[in-house]
Every structure is written in structure tokens, then in C-alpha cells.
């Protein structure tokens, strides 16, 4: 009666790889930095509220980057703010993920040409995992972005990112 001779017919026993277990744990409790920049932040707040319920995916806004796994760049990234965003990202513990939300943080949005004060895309300062298009994106779009990020984490390996 060794362990390897058992046939696990019971549904309560799950066999998995350590990697899959870690990935599952990481993607199921993505705590976000409580951080909003512009009008996209209003949509982000709506997503966190009861109607769209970000919490059902394990996303809880945290007051400090030290406790967070994901930062949602929700709004126009001005040059002045870009320095702060860079620091906030640096201060998050590994592994850390970035969702760029809305046209402004994706590529500069309506300010891309004449906005002397706007960074044309937050990926110029921090590595972005998921871009969510829209101006601003609806909460459903942000949820879709989060699902994409979860999909990405699910397929991660210790070798390739492990941020």
C-alpha cells in the first residue's frame, strides 16, 4: 500500500506540479496598488465596486506597493508622474505585473502629438504585461485585461520570467 500504488479516485485529492501551484496561487490573488491617475481610474473604481466586483478575481486595492502584485496604470501618464510611477513599480515586491489601462497610458492617447507634458506610453518607463484599449475602457474591458494577465501568469515558468 504505497502512495504510488494508490488510485486517486477521490475528487478532493489533486496532483499538480509545483510550478502550476505557484502560478495558480499568484494569479488568484493579484492585489493591486491603490493608485489612479485620471478618468480611467473612475472606471477602475467602478470595476472594484459591487456591480463589477473585481474582488471575485482576487483583486484587492492595497494602500502600499509593498503589499501589491499588480499595478494598473489607469490614466494619463504625465512626465512628472512617470518618475513616481517608475519608483512605485520598483518598490513593489517580485513577482510584479503591470496592466496599462486606456489609450493615454498605452500610447499617449489624445495627447500623443501636442501633449508636451505627456509620456507616450507607460511602457517607456516600466515593462507592461497587458494593454487594455479604450478611452476610457469599460469595466468589462479591464476585467478582460485581468483575465489575459491571469492567462499569462498561468503559463509562466520559473525559467522565463519569475520577474
Amino acid at each position, binding site marked *: 500500500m504505497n502512495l504510488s500504488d494508490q488510485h486517486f479516485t477521490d475528487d478532493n485529492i489533486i496532483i499538480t506540479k509545483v510550478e502550476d501551484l505557484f502560478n495558480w496561487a499568484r494569479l488568484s490573488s493579484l492585489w493591486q496598488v491603490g493608485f489612479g491617475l485620471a478618468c480611467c481610474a473612475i472606471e477602475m473604481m467602478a470595476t472594484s465596486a459591487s456591480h463589477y466586483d473585481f474582488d471575485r478575481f482576487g483583486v484587492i486595492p492595497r494602500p502600499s506597493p509593498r503589499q501589491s502584485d499588480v499595478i494598473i496604470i489607469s490614466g494619463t501618464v504625465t512626465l512628472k508622474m512617470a*518618475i513616481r510611477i517608475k519608483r512605485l513599480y520598483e*518598490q513593489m*515586491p*517580485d513577482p510584479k505585473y503591470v496592466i496599462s489601462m486606456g489609450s493615454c497610458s498605452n500610447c499617449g492617447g489624445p495627447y500623443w502629438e501636442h501633449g508636451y507634458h505627456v509620456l507616450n506610453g507607460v511602457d517607456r518607463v516600466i515593462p507592461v504585461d497587458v494593454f487594455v484599449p479604450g478611452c476610457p475602457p469599460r469595466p468589462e474591458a479591464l476585467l478582460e485585461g485581468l483575465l489575459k494577465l491571469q492567462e499569462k501568469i498561468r503559463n509562466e515558468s520559473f525559467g522565463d520570467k519569475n520577474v
Partner: protein
Amino acid sequence: MTLLFSSVNFHAIFFEIMLTEFGKVFVFILTAALFVIIALVVAKFIRPARPTREKLTTYECGENPEGSPWVKFNIRFYVVALIFLIFDVEVVLLIPWALVYKNFGFIGYLVGAIFLILLGLGMAYEWRKGDLEWVRPKIKEPVITKSPPPKQEKENLTLVN
């Protein structure tokens, strides 16, 4: 079969050792401590630890940390915090008392009443001292209204001598 038997035996021993109710509490506390310790140790082993200079700087909402956090606070915050704490503890102690004091008759009532009177005295003292007011009234310098006592005449003194 032997396994089953030994487990039963172990149960018997276990419950013989666990004589007191406090023992159960102790095991409960021990389990709680172990849970935390195991979680911290496991996390220590499996998490990536990549400290950088930027990551280790003080978090001040992305701003540059300015100055020392060891700044001086007004001592009056301490008094306010202390007064708050006293009444906080008062509530904590009074709620269980309020639930059961009827079972103990007049003595039960008296115990709570003495406690409240003592706190009331403290409160009156604080009030009188002006610790409940943040903006202190300006200290009035004492003005002497009485005229100084009249000088004794030298003639009298000489007479006594």
C-alpha cells in the same frame, strides 16, 4: 490494524495529558503561533528576494523621502491618546459587565458603579486641568490686588527691646 490500535492508544494518552482547560488554550495558542511561523518560513524559502536600492527606500507615495521620521510631536497628543485609551478600555470592560451584572445583584451593580465613579473623578480632573481643550486659554498672570501689609514701625520694635 496495528496502526489503528496505536492511534487509539495515542488518543487515550493525549486526553490523559490534557487535564486542564488552560492546557487546551495553550495548545490553541501554540497552534496559532506555529501557523504563523510555518507560513513565514515557507514564504521565506519560496519567494524571490531581489532587493534593490530603489526598493529599499522608504515608501512615501513615490516621492523622495525627506528628512528624518524622528520628528518631535506635541506632548499634548500623548495626553489626548491616553484619555482616549482610558475610555476605550472602559467600554471594553463595561460591556461584559453590563451583560451579567444583574446576576450578581447589588454587589455586581456596586462594582461597576465604583469603577465608573473612579473614571468620572479622573474625567473631572482632566476637565478641570483643561486637557480636553486643544486650544488652551491664555495663562493670566496673577495680579495682586491687596496692598502690601503696612510696615511695622521701628519705634515699637525698640520699645520691646
